[in-house]
C-alpha cells in the first residue's frame, strides 16, 4: 500500500514538475497535416470537444480548411478531422464584414494566419477585419476587430454546410433539409441547421445554435432563400436556407465578441451551454482554459527535454490529433435519454482501432471507458454498435465489426467501469445477427456466408477484408468470453477465429511469395477471373492477382474484394495468429523474404491503415531489429512537421497515433494485452498514468549511429524480449535500452505471445 502511495505522490510531483516547467501545448502545431492528404481540422477544439469552429474555404474541403490562396466563405462551428470521402458538418457559419446589409456573399482572402492549440487568428483582406477564435466543449468564442473607420457587421448563415453539390443526392454529399433563424433580442440570435447525408449517408441531424454578441445589434436583415427581409426578425423553416445580416453601428472599441453555443437538442440548450461553459466575456480566459485542459492530457507523456523541437512538435501534435475525435456528446443526444456516455463521430473504428483507441487507453483510460460505454449505449438503443457513426447515425461499415476489438482491448487491459456482460451481448449480436440490408450502416455484411461456409464468398463485396476482420473480431469475442467463464462461447469463437484460413490459397505464388488471401465463390472454387459489366450478350472479366485494385475501374470503390488495399497487404493481416501465418507462408525465412519484398517493391502502403502492424511482423521471426529499421525509414520518409506532414488522411488521428506510438518505441497489437518494443525516437519518455504510477522508457546512448538495441533491463533486471505487457507498463517502473551501432540478438528468441 505504501508503495502505491509513494508512486501516486511521485506521479503527482512529476506532473507538477512538468507543468511547473515547460508547457507542452506549445509543441502542438495544428497545421501539421492540414494540407496534402492529412485533412486535419485546424481550428480550436477541446479534447473530444463537440464544437470545432474554424474556417471554411468554400464547401469542398473535408476539414473546411484550404491554404491562403483560397478565399474563406466563413467560419462554421462543426467539423471533423482527417476524413476521406464526402465532407460532413460545416454548420452555422459566421462571417464578419463591413458596409450595408445588402450582400449575403462576404467571401474574403486572408493573410497573417496564426494557428496554435486552442486558437485561430487571421486577417480578412476584404474589410481588414481580424478574426480570433477559441472554444470550450460546446461553445465557440469569437473576437472580431474591425478597422477604426468601419461599421461592424456580421453574417450568421444557418443554411451553409460542407460538401454541397449541384446534383441532388450526389454520392456521399450532404443534403440540405431545413433551417431557421430568429433575432431574439439586440444581443441574441438563435436558430438551427438541419442536414442529412454526407460520407456516412446518415439520417438528418440538427445543429441548434444560440449566439450572444458583446455589442448591441443596431439593425438587421434576415433572409430566406435568395430574398433579404430588412427588419424581419424571424425566418421559420420552410425548407429553404435562412440567415441574418447584423449591423452593430460604430463602437469605440471597434471590437465585437460573439459566443456561439451549439447543441443537438435545442437552441435553449445551446444558450445554456454558453452560461455553463463561457459565462464571461474574457477571450483570454477561455483560451487559457482550453490550453490548460490540453496540457493536463499532453503532460501525461513527457519526453526528453533535449529532444529536437521538430520531434517534440511531431509527437505532441500526434497526441493532440488522436484526441480530437470521437466527440463527447453526453447530454446532447436528441434520440434517447441514457445515463451512459454518448459519443459521436466514430469516423471510423475501422481506422482507429489499431492505434488511436489503444493510445487513448494509455493516456486517458477513463476516457476510453467512456468511449466503450458509449458504444454500448448506442447498441442498447440502435441495436448494433457502430463501426462508424456521425450525425447521430451509424454508418458506414468498411470491413469488420471492429467495436469488438475495442471491447476486447479494454477487457484484457483491465479497464473497469464497463458492463462486460452487456458488451459480450453486443459483440454476439454483431457475430450472429445479419444487418438485414443495412450492411453499410452497421453489423456484418456477408454474415450468412461467413457463418455457413466459414468465409465471405464472392457473392458479397469486400469479401476479403470482411473475412479477415471477422476472424479477428471473433478472436476478440473468444477472449472476452473466456475471461467471463463462458467456455462454450470461447471455444466456438476461437474456432471461428481460424476462418481466415478458408480464404488462404496455399499454392498461389506471386513475386516469390506463396499463399495469399484470394477470392472464392460459395462453392469453394478459387476465382482467378472475376466477371464485371452488364452486357446483354458479352461476358467481361478481369484477372484478380494479389496486386489488383479493381476499383473504381471494374467495380465501385466499395465493391472490390478488399477495401482500399490489395491482397498483398491484407494477407499479412492476421494479428491474433501471426505464428500460424508464418507457417502458412512457408516458415520464418520465407516470411522474412515476403516482408522484404513487400517493402522493397513498394507494395507497402503508408497512406492507409490496413498495413499498420506489418512493419512490426519481423518480431515474430526473431528480428525486432528489422522492424525498427523499417519503422525508422517509414517515419523518416513520410512524417514531418510541414503542413503536408502526414502521409494519408489522418482518419480521426489514426495516422498520428501510429506515429506517436513508434516515437515512444511502443506499438500495440490492439485487442491483446501487450506492446511490441522498437527503437524509441526519444532518449527518454515518461508515461504518467491515471493511476498515479510512472513508467519510463530510456534509450541510453541513442543516436543516429547507435540505433540498435543491444540489451534491455526492466526495473534493473535483464529484459530479453521485444514486447512488454500492458500490466507491466501500468505497474510503473523503468525500461532501459542500451543502444549500439550494430544489430544484436536482443529480443530474438522470446516472441510476442499468442493467446488462445
Amino acid at each position, binding site marked *: 500500500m505504501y508503495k502505491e502511495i509513494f508512486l501516486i505522490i511521485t506521479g503527482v510531483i512529476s506532473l507538477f514538475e512538468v507543468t511547473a516547467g515547460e508547457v507542452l501545448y506549445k509543441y502542438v502545431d495544428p497545421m501539421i497535416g492540414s494540407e496534402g492528404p492529412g485533412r486535419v481540422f485546424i481550428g480550436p477544439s477541446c479534447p473530444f470537444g463537440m464544437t470545432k469552429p474554424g474556417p471554411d474555404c468554400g464547401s469542398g474541403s473535408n476539414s473546411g480548411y484550404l491554404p491562403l490562396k483560397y478565399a474563406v466563405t466563413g467560419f462554421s462551428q462543426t467539423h471533423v478531422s482527417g476524413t476521406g470521402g464526402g465532407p460532413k458538418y460545416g454548420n452555422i457559419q459566421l462571417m464578419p464584414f463591413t458596409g450595408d446589409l445588402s450582400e449575403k456573399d462576404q467571401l474574403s482572402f486572408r493573410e497573417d494566419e496564426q494557428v496554435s492549440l486552442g486558437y485561430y487568428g487571421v486577417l480578412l483582406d476584404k474589410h481588414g477585419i481580424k478574426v480570433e477564435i477559441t472554444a470550450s466543449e460546446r461553445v465557440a468564442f469569437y473576437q472580431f476587430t474591425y478597422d477604426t473607420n468601419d461599421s461592424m457587421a456580421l453574417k450568421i448563415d444557418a443554411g451553409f454546410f460542407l460538401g454541397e453539390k449541384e446534383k441532388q443526392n450526389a454520392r456521399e454529399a450532404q443534403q440540405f433539409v431545413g433551417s431557421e433563424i430568429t433575432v431574439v433580442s439586440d444581443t441574441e440570435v438563435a436558430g438551427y441547421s438541419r442536414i442529412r447525408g454526407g460520407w456516412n449517408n446518415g439520417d438528418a441531424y440538427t445543429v441548434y445554435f444560440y449566439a450572444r454578441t458583446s455589442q448591441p445589434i443596431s439593425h438587421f436583415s434576415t433572409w430566406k432563400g435568395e430574398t433579404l427581409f430588412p427588419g424581419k426578425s424571424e425566418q421559420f423553416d420552410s425548407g429553404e436556407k435562412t440567415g441574418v445580416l447584423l449591423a452593430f453601428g460604430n463602437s469605440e472599441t471597434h471590437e465585437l465578441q460573439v459566443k456561439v453555443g451549439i447543441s443537438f437538442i435545442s437552441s435553449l440548450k445551446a444558450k445554456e451551454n454558453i452560461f455553463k461553459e463561457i459565462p464571461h466575456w474574457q477571450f483570454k480566459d477561455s483560451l487559457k482554459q482550453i490550453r490548460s485542459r490540453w496540457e493536463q492530457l499532453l503532460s501525461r507523456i513527457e519526453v526528453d527535454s533535449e529532444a529536437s523541437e521538430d520531434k517534440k512538435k511531431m509527437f505532441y501534435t500526434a497526441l493532440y490529433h488522436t484526441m480530437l475525435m470521437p466527440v463527447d456528446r453526453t447530454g446532447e443526444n436528441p434520440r434517447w435519454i441514457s445515463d451512459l456516455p454518448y459519443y459521436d463521430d466514430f469516423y471510423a473504428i475501422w481506422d482507429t482501432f489499431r492505434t488511436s483507441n489503444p493510445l487513448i487507453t494509455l493516456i486517458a483510460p477513463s476516457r476510453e471507458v467512456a468511449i466503450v460505454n458509449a458504444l454500448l449505449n448506442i447498441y442498447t438503443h440502435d441495436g448494433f454498435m457502430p463501426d462508424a457513426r456521425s450525425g447521430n447515425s451509424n454508418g458506414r461499415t468498411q470491413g469488420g465489426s471492429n467495436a469488438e476489438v475495442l471491447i476486447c482491448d479494454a477487457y484484457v487491459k483491465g479497464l473497469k467501469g464497463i458492463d462486460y456482460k452487456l458488451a459480450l451481448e453486443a459483440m454476439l449480436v454483431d457475430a450472429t445477427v445479419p444487418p438485414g440490408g443495412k450492411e453499410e450502416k452497421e453489423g456484418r455484411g456477408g454474415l450468412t456466408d461467413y457463418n455457413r461456409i466459414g468465409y465471405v464468398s464472392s457473392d458479397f463485396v469486400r469479401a476479403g477484408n470482411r473475412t479477415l476482420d471477422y476472424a479477428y473480431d471473433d478472436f476478440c469475442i473468444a477472449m472476452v468470453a473466456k475471461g467471463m467463464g463462458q467456455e462454450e462461447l470461447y471455444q466456438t469463437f476461437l474456432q471461428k477465429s481460424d476462418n481466415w484460413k478458408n480464404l488462404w490459397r496455399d499454392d498461389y505464388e506471386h513475386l516469390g511469395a506463396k499463399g495469399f488471401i484470394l477470392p472464392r465463390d460459395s462453392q469453394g472454387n478459387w476465382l482467378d477471373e472475376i466477371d464485371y*459489366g452488364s452486357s446483354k450478350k458479352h461476358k467481361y472479366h*478481369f484477372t484478380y492477382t494479389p496486386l489488383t485494385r479493381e476499383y473504381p475501374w471494374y467495380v465501385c470503390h466499395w465493391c472490390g474484394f478488399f477495401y482500399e488495399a490489395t491482397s498483398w497487404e491484407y494477407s499479412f493481416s492476421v494479428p491474433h495468429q501471426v505464428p500460424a501465418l508464418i507457417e502458412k507462408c512457408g516458415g520464418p525465412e520465407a516470411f522474412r523474404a515476403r516482408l522484404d519484398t513487400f517493402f522493397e517493391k513498394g507494395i507497402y502502403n503508408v497512406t492507409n491503415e490496413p498495413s499498420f502492424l506489418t512493419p512490426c511482423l519481423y518480431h515474430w521471426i526473431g528480428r525486432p531489429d528489422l522492424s525498427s529499421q523499417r519503422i525508422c525509414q517509414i517515419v523518416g520518409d513520410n512524417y514531418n512537421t510541414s503542413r503536408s506532414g502526414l502521409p494519408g488522411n489522418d482518419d480521426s488521428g489514426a495516422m498520428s497515433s501510429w506515429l506517436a506510438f513508434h516515437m515512444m518505441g511502443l506499438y500495440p497489437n490492439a485487442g491483446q494485452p501487450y506492446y511490441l518494443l522498437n527503437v524509441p525516437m526519444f532518449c527518454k519518455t515518461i508515461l504518467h498514468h491515471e493511476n498515479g504510477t510512472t513508467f519510463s522508457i530510456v534509450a541510453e546512448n541513442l543516436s543516429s549511429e547507435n540505433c540498435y538495441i543491444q540489451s534491455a533491463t526492466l526495473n534493473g533486471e535483464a529484459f530479453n524480449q521485444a514486447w512488454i505487457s500492458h500490466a507491466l507498463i501500468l505497474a510503473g517502473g523503468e525500461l532501459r535500452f542500451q543502444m549500439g551501432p550494430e544489430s544484436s540478438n536482443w529480443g530474438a528468441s522470446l516472441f510476442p505471445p499468442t493467446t488462445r
Partner: protein
Amino acid sequence: MKRNFIFISLPLFFIIVFSSVDAHPAIGVETTFNYTLFLHGQQRRLNITIKNGRGALVLEWESSPYQGSFCLSNKAVQYADRMYFKQPTPFTQIQTAENETLFCFISQNAYAVLKEKSHFKYNETVYREIEEVDREFLLQKNQSLPVLHVIDEIDDSEMWILADPLFPLVCEMRHNPRGVDFKLNAITYKNPTD
C-alpha cells in the same frame, strides 16, 4: 474503297505529323487529350499524350498520382477491330494486341467502313451511325469538333467519334456495358514553335 485504301496505307509517321481535319489543328506528337472518366459513381481525370515511337504509336497516360503508357503497332492503328479496355497499369508500358486500339479511338479501317456504310463492327458489336443535324462535339472553352455519333445494337452504348480518318478519336462514350464511360474535355496541341 480505293480512297480509303490510300489513307490506310500511309506510313504511321505521316499519320502522326499530318493528321488533320478541317476545324481543328493537327493531332500529332505531344497532343494531349484530357478526359473525364465516369467510373461507378466516381470521376477521374485522365490525360493521354501522343509520344514518339519507333514504328509504333506510344500513348502516355497520367491520372494523378499514377502514370503509364500504351504501345500500339501500326497494324493495330490501321486495322484493329476491338478496344483495349483493361484498367491501366501504373508505371508500366502495355503493348496492346495487333487487333486492339486503346479505348479512346477506333482504327482507321473501322472509321473508313463507318464512313462508307454508316455502320462498323468493333468489340464484336455493330455500331450504327445516328444521323443528326448537329454533328459538333463541344469541348471546354467552346472549342467544337466534328463528330460521328454511333450506337451499338446490343447494349445501346453510344460513341461520338472525331471525324478524322487518320485519328478517329472517341470523344465520348456513354452507357458502356463495361461501366467505364468517358468524355473528352480538351485537346492540347503541341506549340508549333517548340
